[in-house]
């Protein structure tokens, strides 16, 4: 009985053979529908901040560095690749690519930054995209209320003219960590 079981086990093992893949020596493409690194299409993005306010991991930041320039920063180091940004983007500017080999020793390799030129609202002075109106409203219909307090704080930050300081702060942005005791 004991021997018979061992023979069966041997048979299974031999039948399966070596299953180790030759990866990374042979490429192993991801299947269709895989959610890899999100990619932003610069031409389509309207700077509505929908992705920033719905990102569960809070890896997408938007900031106006001057009146007409809005910066979108995607910090991939903490991204969970849930694809929520791509779902909610009203312009379908975000695609979940099949890139998964993202290990790097330089954070900039996986960070994406987009500079967006925005128009200025003559009434309130804030930026918006002139061509297409009311996207914030359309966006809130897709998901939940526009309520990420942190993202909102970041978006509202705006100066009258180009400020190198704000650009610097955006690029080296750190989330508020420890509160004062």
């Amino acid at each position: 009985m004991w021997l018979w079981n061992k023979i069966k086990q041997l048979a299974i093992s031999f039948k399966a053979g070596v299953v180790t893949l030759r990866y990374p020596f042979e490429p192993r493409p991801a299947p269709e529908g895989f959610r890899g690194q999100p990619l932003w299409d610069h031409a389509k993005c309207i700077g509505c901040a929908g992705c920033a306010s719905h990102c569960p991991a809070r890896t997408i930041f938007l900031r106006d560095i001057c009146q007409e320039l809005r910066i979108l920063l995607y910090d991939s180091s903490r991204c969970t690749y849930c694809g929520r940004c791509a779902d909610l983007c009203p312009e379908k500017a975000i695609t979940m690519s099949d890139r998964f080999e993202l290990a790097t020793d330089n954070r900039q390799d996986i960070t994406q930054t987009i500079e967006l030129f925005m128009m200025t609202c003559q009434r309130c002075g804030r930026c918006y995209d002139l061509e297409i109106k009311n996207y914030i409203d359309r966006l809130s219909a897709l998901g939940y209320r526009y309520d990420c307090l942190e993202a909102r704080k970041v978006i509202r930050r705006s100066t009258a003219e180009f400020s190198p300081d704000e650009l610097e702060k955006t690029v080296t942005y750190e989330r508020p960590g420890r509160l004062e005791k």
Partner: protein
Amino acid sequence: MSRAEKLRRWLEKELGGNLISAETPFPGRLFIDLKREALTAAASGLMNQGARYQMGIGYDARKDGRGFGLVHTFAFDRDSLLVALRTFAPGDNPEFDSLTPFIPGAGWSEREYQDLLGLKFRNLSDRKRLVLSDDWPEGIYPLRREVPHDLMPPAAEEVAFRLEEAPPGTSIIPFGPFHASLHEPAHFSVYVDGEDIKGCEYRGFMTHRGIEKLAQTELTYNDVPFVAERICGICGSVHAVNYAQAVEAAAGISIPRRAEFIRMVALELERLHSHLLWLGVAGHLIGFDTVFMQAWRIREKIMWLAERLTGNRKTYGLVIIGGVRRDINRESSRDIRSTLEEVDREMQALEKAILKDRTIHRRTRGVGYLSKEETVKWNLVGPVARARGLKIDARRDHPYAAYDEVEFEVPVADSGDVWGTLVVRVKEVYEAIKIINQCLDRLEKLSKNEPLAVELEGPIPAGRQGLSLVEAPRGEAVHFVLTGNENRPERWRVRAPTYPNLQAVPSMLLNNKLADFPIIVGQIDPCISCTDRVLVVENRSGKARLLSRQELENISRAKRSGR
């Protein structure tokens, strides 16, 4: 008369003026508000009527002027009924009666809120810290509202958990926090007399991540599923579905049929993958690596299937409140069927080859025995309980999604040892395959135009309670949601199946050989990160700084040389 109605009448009679309200907002749940004095009477009454204790939930309701809330939940498995007893204590005197004298399994919940909320419990025998780290300062209770979610008190040197002295005649063998037989950090201080285990003390909660606090301070309703599924590396969908069900129940949202079946497919795929993973790990722990290799080889097919279906090797990112995000169309349904056929065939071959093997029998029979009475006493769940003759399964007893429409068996063994657990788990693999095939049949019949998720009309009303069960591969997982303002839950409590199961491990270890320690702990498939989920400091927040390689080297060297 239904059980809920009976219970309500009984409570009215028994408690009189101490009963504030008893509501059934949706079938299968009974939410009871009590005065603090009546908690013991009500809880012991429920236990006498055959309830199974699930968990305690503490929360800070001082904002509404109600002090601290404490909810204890109970399950009546035969009547598909969950009962939640809620009491409040004033903020300046948060003292409750402990339930531990008659429900030992309530000890962890109570110690948890002693740590996190500063609640006090009369007659609680073990008052040691459970959740918080040893150098966490006294008097800061992280789940309280005024404590920010990212508070990082300075680390204290030379503070250690005070482990008990070994009983006379025994000596201590420490297992963990990092040990070859434990896959996640936990500390067992095992008392041995020669080779025999005479007792053990557990110190865990070392991977405490603060997810519940995060959900009630930072995240929004629809962010939480994506964080919830990262509570556990194995039962991701379980927690996401469970949370979504709790919110949907609280808000009265009913989700499309199609979404229910897709959720079930995801849950059962996870069960398949988890059982095969456990089988491999169990084989590895008893030194039978053929099982490990072959079970994991079969499991890999399921991981690839999940990758094709959901876009991630784990079934992550599938669930949102109100439904699911991805469809299973005819093509992927064919894909699932052919993969499952293969898995079924290979699993049967593997089962035949190993289940009669003497190696397994000698290492598992009679090991980690726990009697049925003890199992009931510690409120064990899942395959661990089913291996001890307890026929409980949330899928059958408290049907969620569409489990009441599919046919499946609940395998039970009565040997009460590791062997029973193994048999139950192997049998459940086939049941899971059966369920998935039935779900696919249904999905193919449903109209394709049905939406995958419902649109939400207006905000989710605040102050409602939702309680949801999902049978995770390891046992039943319970989620409690109290809806709040600001588009986020006021309180979200997760009880993973390991939480009750781990509490009974000391009893299972008793009088076994030390060499069997790994498999006895391994039989409950301890998911330490599920159990430790709740709170403390959020390390991932802001202060991450890029270190150059040189800096890192310098730091490590400084640490090593004690500078």
